[in-house]
């Protein structure tokens, strides 16, 4: 058991170390993220001009929502789909298949190493800088400060699962760029990073109730803002865990089906 864990610890380290080599790029995307936050901030400020509450969010809550949401995204984002896509394209997936590991957990933990790196060099610095530039509230409620970090870590594993499923599309079609872009926007919009779920028309909200996306950002952010009563907070975290398990299982299933379909074109 310890041996098995040691293996995934090494994958995590690998993911972390890989990004140390890209420090310049991380700095560049630090600037990009600040820009996204600023532009979103001004866009939302305009939408709120002359109004106090829209779709259950006050202007102050919304400003915090935008800044914390995009900052959290730097942590829970991953490149698993693109990594699998590239590995299929250049044939290096053969090497991955030879490794005596669980392919899915390998990607989860390697990306978690990246997420740890991002947390230290992106998420925290962005929150610090943004808190000087924009008026943001501290986590409110009794549980916000404790449960929010736990919830965002769960978001990472949930999003990792969705990216993994998307990455496996590369086993079935060669033209996966469009699918990856679709998934990216799907997650950005329906997770609630770009817009709180309550802004959508009723039928969309109903549909999202049955889908995992809103547990990536919307649910943790409501915990942060102290908008949920205690019972709903627990429920939200439990639903996150449930979705992580469901998507993990779906990933295992799709893998066993997809591996038979996989064609590797000689490089």
């Amino acid at each position, binding site marked *: 058991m310890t041996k098995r864990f040691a293996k995934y610890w090494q994958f995590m380290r690998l993911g972390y170390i890989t990004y140390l080599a890209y420090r310049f790029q991380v700095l560049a995307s630090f600037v990009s993220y600040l820009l996204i936050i600023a532009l979103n901030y001004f866009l939302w400020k305009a939408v709120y*001009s002359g109004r106090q509450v829209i779709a259950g969010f006050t202007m102050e809550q919304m400003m915090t929502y935008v800044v914390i949401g995009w900052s959290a995204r730097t942590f829970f984002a991953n490149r698993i789909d693109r990594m699998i896509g590239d590995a299929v394209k250049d044939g290096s997936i053969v090497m991955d298949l030879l490794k005596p590991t669980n392919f899915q957990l390998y990607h989860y933990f390697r990306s978690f190493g990246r997420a740890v790196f991002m947390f230290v060099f992106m998420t925290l610095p962005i929150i610090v800088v943004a808190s000087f530039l924009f008026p943001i509230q501290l986590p409110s409620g009794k549980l916000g400060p404790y449960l929010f970090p736990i919830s965002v870590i769960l978001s990472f594993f949930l999003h990792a699962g969705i990216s993994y499923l998307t990455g496996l599309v590369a086993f079935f*079609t060669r033209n*996966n760029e469009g699918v990856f872009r679709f998934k990216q*926007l799907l997650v950005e919009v329906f997770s609630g990073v770009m817009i709180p779920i309550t802004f959508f028309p009723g039928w969309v909200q109903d549909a999202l109730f049955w889908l995992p996306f809103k547990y990536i950002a919307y649910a943790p952010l409501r915990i942060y803002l102290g908008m949920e009563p205690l019972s709903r907070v627990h429920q939200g975290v439990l639903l996150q865990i449930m979705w992580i398990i469901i998507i993990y299982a779906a990933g295992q299933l799709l893998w066993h089906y997809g591996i038979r379909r996989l064609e590797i074109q000689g490089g």
Partner: protein
Amino acid sequence: MSSYQHIISSLYMRRTLFYINLAWANVSNSLKSRLAYREDFWAGFIANFMTQMIGVLFVAALFGRVPHVKGWYRYEIFYIYGFSQLTLGLFFLFFSNLFEVSERYIVEGWFDRVLLRPLDSFFQVIIERIHFEEISNILVGLVIMLYSLHHLKISLSPSQHLMILGMALSACLIYLGVFTAAVSATFWFNDRGSLVSVLHLMQNFSGYPVTIYGPKLKFILSWIIPYAFTAFYPAVQVLRPSKYVLYAWLTPAIGLLFFGLGMFTWKQGVKAYESTGS
């Protein structure tokens, strides 16, 4: 016209025709090669269309809860958004290979191959790929524009249709110029396109009325990175003809200016290009 000038001009004609023929041959070839993998082709098409739909849903939700934002009514905002999707679709349909330049052509050294041929290097890079999936962007943009105009009870005269087409093409030139300049930066700095990604991000905010952002951001989006001319100013011309007239008619000029700037940077960049030697 002296016969000397006549020969020169007919040479230019032949050169231009030659390039048009090449471009056409390339479009039909790349369509054929894409259709060879029919399932993949449609997978890409459907994915692109669904991505569009999510974008539309986002904009509808963002502005759906309020009747107007700083004086801009919902359907006016939708029209501007539709126009921005139309121009983005046109741009990415023909010029998406531009975004492969940093990684593939410069860092990996594919550009050597381009320089070996006796053809314009920019032309070669551009025609290498036609991104057919973007046709759905163009269609979705047009549908949103028509839908908004219907709600706004605005009907267009034939000359206005022509004007919109001209404005969309000018807007395309702005994008082309801005991104060519940004991509050309890789000839000097080995940065793999972080400047490009910042410009991409800002593009997402060009489909709304720029006046809602406040004066500073409006200035930047008008005069430094002129994205306001790719959707807002030309679209307003139809919505509120008396407003920003001058700005709308500046669009083609800004398009030509930035296109020229992009070409200039490209030419200088090619001169500075050093092969990776791989």
